[in-house]
């Protein structure tokens, strides 16, 4: 198998070492220096072996290389469609809602006036998020109408066409934590609570959040597995909030970072992932 990366993080090293421990022939390939020639694909195809586990920290680099490799008949985990959906919050919301998976009430529009209308419908607090973005970046709680007007004006200045859409969600009343799970195929291999760092409301470990074990109840397991199926399956980081006895899925990650989850998990996440990827080659 091949681990395709652009930044060799702790996770990629764990995956590589897990593959070697399992006796799996594994190659690390830095995608930053790959070249695709539509008239001669030999060099590119010789760069990879077996199934490719795509682990790029850049969403678009990972997405495009997945598209290229799949078009050449190479099996990639995760598949292009899954990566495309998971990397875009609006596309993820569409999959969750069409599969009846509980998720926060969400609005999307390109118009500032309609965005204000959505905020008023939700009431305050509401949350604005860029549709493409991770680690909690630019996720903004909107406390009142004045803040809504200011942030809509600010977001409207964004030149990047990918993020021109206003993506607005209800602020879910939840305990001061959320749930991060790592789902590999049809198995929940890790499940932890994420607690926000002091003076922070976002629970991302990248923002200083800490983790503690979370028991996987049958109800939670059903939500996680249904979510994985809805986005096309593979190796996923699924984020869930608890609200009035229900679980609301708010994000699905296609190149899951699992260092934080591993600290609070008995099983070896990297080994579970490598075993799954190796099975895709059979």
């Amino acid at each position, binding site marked *: 198998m091949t681990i395709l*990366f652009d*930044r*060799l*993080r702790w996770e*990629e*090293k764990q995956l*590589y070492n897990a593959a070697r421990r399992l006796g799996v022939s594994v190659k*690390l390939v*830095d995608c930053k220096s790959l070249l695709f020639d539509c008239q001669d694909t030999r060099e590119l195809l010789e760069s990879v072996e077996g199934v490719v586990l795509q682990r790029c*920290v*850049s*969403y*678009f680099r990972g997405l495009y290389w997945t598209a290229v490799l799949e078009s050449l008949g190479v099996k990639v985990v995760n598949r292009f469609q899954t990566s495309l959906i998971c*990397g875009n919050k609006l596309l993820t919301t569409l999959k969750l809602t069409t599969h009846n998976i509980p998720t926060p009430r969400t609005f999307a529009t390109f118009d500032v006036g309609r965005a204000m209308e959505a905020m008023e419908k939700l009431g305050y607090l509401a949350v604005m998020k*860029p549709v*493409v*973005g*991770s*680690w909690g*970046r630019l996720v903004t709680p909107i406390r009142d109408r004045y803040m809504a007007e200011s942030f809509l004006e600010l977001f409207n200045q964004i030149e*990047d066409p990918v*993020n021109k859409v206003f993506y607005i969600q209800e602020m879910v009343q939840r305990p001061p934590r959320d749930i991060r799970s790592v789902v590999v195929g049809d198995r929940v291999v890790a499940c932890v609570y994420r607690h926000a760092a002091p003076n922070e409301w976002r629970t991302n470990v*990248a923002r200083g959040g800490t983790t503690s074990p979370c028991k996987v109840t049958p109800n939670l397991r059903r939500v996680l597995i249904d979510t994985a199926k809805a986005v096309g399956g593979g190796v996923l*980081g699924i984020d869930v909030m608890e609200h009035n006895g229900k679980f609301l899925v708010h994000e699905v*990650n*296609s*190149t*899951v*970072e699992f260092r934080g989850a591993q600290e609070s998990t008995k099983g070896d996440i990297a080994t579970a992932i490598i075993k799954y990827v190796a099975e895709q080659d059979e």
Partner: protein
Amino acid sequence: MIRVKCTQCDADIPVPDDVMQGELLSCPDCSTDYEVVKVGHEGVVIKEAEAVAEDWGE
């Protein structure tokens, strides 16, 4: 332990014995991030790491 020089502040950056190509190293003095470009008998070659981009993450 091998050390490489920070090109920003000239500090010594320690390099782990099991360093791998593609790995990141941080200068202990000025926190500049470097990517390991090559690991060989002649030593370790580094270059300044890419800055975090808007599409980076999980």
